């Protein structure tokens, strides 16, 4: 058994910068739905969650990875320490930050909840899957359940008495959710008899809570095929009268990462005795009900990526300060020159700044997105002003999910590279971060599904109003800062990227109407990347404008000076090395290269 050690690190100064200097959460605090919340409470929560995760969850990350989950007598056993952590989590109350007071929560800002989520996930990704999915399942019931269903399940799912799971995937129904064949047969009393097999169900079984409330997508016999015919059912592992509900765990998967999160095969109704109730009492609403949750789940996956990548970066940074190797290039002729820390080597610094810019940029995107959610909450969904904010949420969700997760894996790989050989070993946390992070680009809809959501649905949503509002926000920023004494060159790069992005979107429209539809999926992932890079470039530059102004006011040796300086470097680096590639990518897309479609199957390989 390896020594339980915490490796999780977070730079809370960055969290506070985003909250109070860039996105001005304080403007929403102390009034309306956030009347109970002030800056002090927000800061106290950040500090306490960080203290809590580094002590309680962080040490479980490595040991949980090593021990993994196992199946004994059809029951999943989670690694040592998980049960205690589950209890401690619900006692501390961190999951109820943003829940309404009548649900036992504190009605806090969603943005704060998301930063707390980042810390919990970064400290132990596998552990955090169980409570996060429980919350997701509870929120479906909260939003769509009948009053009786809410009464029956919610309080216990919010306080950790019950856990939850989301059961969509079947062996023939992965990306193609509509191919699900799990059956639901109406019973005389209005409940349903459920039968079928779901696979890959995270938290499908565990020993943390005595009951699990599964949300199961299934089809009634008279329902049409495809996604529209699906209904969503509440299927407890144990019926509320205490009798078992014929839900059996048929096995768990052996995986590359998140090994302490049980990924279960679930057999429903093997003995014809599995009873479920339909969410909200209405059939064939399953997909739209799941979809609303999908927004939150997808943001959650982006945050998973951010969380792990951020800790990978900060660990690589501290290792780079410590590890001595080679001498300064300035003394390359002198074999006896003193050995230096690897952070003094230019290429190591490049990797560190690259990771810093990406991590902080993705966090800025995440905080922007969650701030829009808070604004919708503050204004009320029906308020016409809320439409702009909801539009930006819808637009940015595929970005945070796909770019956040793709980048996470890359950043973890860069972190390993920064360590050198040590990074490849189990002695350090980055190899696990890398393995854990790979799943994020796959579940909750693969990243290609996200890219198709962006170009197929989101660009055209509300007649293109959402994407136009985004373009206008970027253009306003560029116009306001194009003469910036420090950043003007990078702001010009941002302006060019935004133009390239708009022209590529126009191109998609022409392709769609001009008989070249097959080119759209080929360019979709690249377009999502371009849009993410433009958005992040903008947010990093916006941060740099704020940071430069704030830094000038400080004494030369004030510790915040270095922080603000870092913001400037991150923004300039990202603009010059990443945002600058956006017009090139647009050009490339414009060439209508269809080689991957044209190559014959046989030409891929001779075996």
């Amino acid at each position: 058994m390896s020594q339980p050690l915490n490796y999780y690190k977070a730079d809370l100064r960055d969290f506070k910068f985003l909250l109070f200097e860039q996105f001005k959460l304080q403007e929403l605090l102390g009034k309306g739905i956030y009347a109970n919340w002030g800056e002090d409470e927000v800061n106290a929560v950040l500090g306490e969650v960080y203290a809590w995760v580094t002590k309680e969850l962080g040490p479980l990350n490595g040991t949980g990875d090593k021990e993994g989950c196992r199946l004994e007598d059809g029951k999943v056993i989670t690694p040592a320490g998980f049960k205690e952590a589950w209890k401690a989590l619900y006692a501390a109350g961190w999951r109820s930050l943003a829940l309404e007071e009548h649900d036992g929560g504190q009605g806090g800002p969603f943005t704060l909840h998301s930063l707390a989520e980042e810390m919990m996930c970064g400290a132990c990704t596998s552990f955090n899957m169980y409570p996060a999915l429980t919350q997701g399942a509870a929120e479906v019931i909260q939003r769509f359940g009948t009053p009786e269903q809410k009464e029956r399940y919610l309080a216990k799912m919010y306080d950790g008495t019950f856990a939850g799971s989301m059961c969509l995937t079947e062996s023939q129904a992965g990306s193609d959710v509509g191919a699900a064949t799990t059956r639901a047969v109406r019973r005389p009393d209005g409940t349903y008899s459920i039968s079928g097999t779901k696979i890959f169900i995270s938290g499908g079984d565990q020993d943390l809570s005595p009951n699990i409330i599964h949300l199961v997508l299934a089809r009634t016999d008279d329902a049409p095929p495809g996604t529209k015919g699906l209904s969503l059912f509440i299927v407890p592992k144990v019926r509320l009268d205490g009798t078992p509900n014929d839900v059996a765990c048929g096995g768990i998967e052996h995986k590359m990462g998140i090994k302490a999160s049980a990924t279960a095969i679930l057999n429903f109704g093997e003995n014809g005795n599995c009873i479920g109730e339909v969410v909200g009492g209405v059939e064939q609403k399953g997909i739209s009900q799941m979809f609303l949750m999908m927004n939150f789940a997808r943001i959650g996956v982006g945050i998973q990526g951010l969380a792990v990548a951020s800790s990978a970066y900060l660990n690589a940074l501290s290792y780079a300060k410590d590890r001595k190797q080679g001498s300064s290039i300035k003394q390359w002729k002198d074999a006896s020159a003193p050995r230096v820390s690897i952070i003094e080597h230019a290429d190591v610094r490049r990797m560190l700044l690259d990771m810093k810019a990406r991590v902080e940029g993705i966090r800025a995107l995440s905080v922007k997105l969650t701030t829009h959610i808070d604004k919708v909450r503050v204004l009320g969904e029906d308020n016409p002003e809320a439409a702009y904010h909801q539009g930006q949420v819808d637009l940015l969700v595929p970005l945070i999910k796909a770019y956040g997760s793709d980048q996470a894996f890359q950043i973890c790989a860069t972190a390993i590279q920064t360590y050198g050989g040590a990074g490849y070993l189990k002695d350090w946390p980055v190899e696990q971060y890398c393995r854990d992070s790979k799943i994020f680009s796959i579940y909750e809809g693969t990243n290609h599904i996200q890219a198709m959501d962006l170009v197929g649905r989101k660009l055209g949503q509300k007649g293109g109003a959402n994407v136009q509002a985004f373009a206008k926000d970027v253009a306003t920023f560029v116009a306001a800062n194009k003469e910036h004494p420090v950043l003007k060159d990078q702001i010009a790069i941002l302006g060019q990227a935004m133009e390239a992005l708009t022209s590529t979107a126009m191109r998609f429209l022409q392709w769609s109407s001009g008989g070249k539809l097959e080119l759209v999926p080929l360019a979709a992932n690249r377009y999502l990347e371009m849009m993410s890079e433009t958005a992040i470039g903008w947010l990093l530059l916006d941060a740099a404008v704020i940071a430069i102004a704030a830094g000038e006011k400080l004494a030369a040796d004030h510790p915040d000076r270095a922080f603000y300086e870092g913001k400037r470097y991150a923004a300039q680096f990202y603009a010059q090395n990443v945002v600058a590639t956006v017009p090139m990518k647009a050009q490339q897309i414009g060439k209508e290269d269809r080689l991957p479609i044209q190559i014959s199957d046989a030409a891929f390989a001779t075996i």
Partner: protein
Amino acid sequence: MKILVPIKRVPDPALKTKVKDGAIDLTGANWVVNPFDEYAVETALRLLENGEAGARVAGAEIVVVTIGPEDAAQQLRSALATGADRAIRVDAEDKALDAGVVVAALVQIIAAEKPDLVILGKQAVDGDANQVGQMLAGKLGWAQATFAASVELAADQKSVLVGREVDAGVEYKRIGTPGILTVDLRIVSPHSVKNNVTPATFAYPDGPRYASLKGIMAAKKKPMDVKKLSDYGVTTTPVTREVGIELPAARAAGQIVADIPTLVKKLADEAKAI
């Protein structure tokens, strides 16, 4: 039963100390509650609750007090967030304080609050002076038990039995209330605090508790009085004076010696270790 816990804010001991112009550089310092004072708050909480049920005993009150500038309110809030009931901040700049001034203020606060026990950290990790508890007991003429590693509150709440780690082992002292207790690190071990209410078998987690979300939100609504030294008639001024501060000399690099006789000789002649 009422317990008063004086707390002090200190620069985060986990961070490197910077010295500038002969003084510790506190620009942008990250202030935290002195760790021993956190243990004192934890001790008070454990003494006045049923740990297993997670419920306060009837009639119990914990008052935290600090003497310091406006920012120090944050440290009081964090004590309130873990479960203290009420806070008092006596406004004063750090420069205007030394152990003597702090004790003079505490004597007056104690006269007004009439606590049954005053629990303090054995020392603050900034100056490591280790004076306030003892001086306070002297000024008040109360019984004191310092460096408590364990404490048991008698069922009648009229006395505490205190375990202190001394060179020869553990020394037990019983002091009556009202009295002064200063606490050491061990006081926050799982079984160190007993109160004849929490079942003896109950094990606390090691270390002081975290604030829960509910605790943080409740802290906002708990009373915090702000007073001035003059409200307590304190006119004492510091008698200690900081002459200068310098970091310890950097350690010299190690040496590799050829053989054991050289090592022994160096240990004897240079290191004077043998």
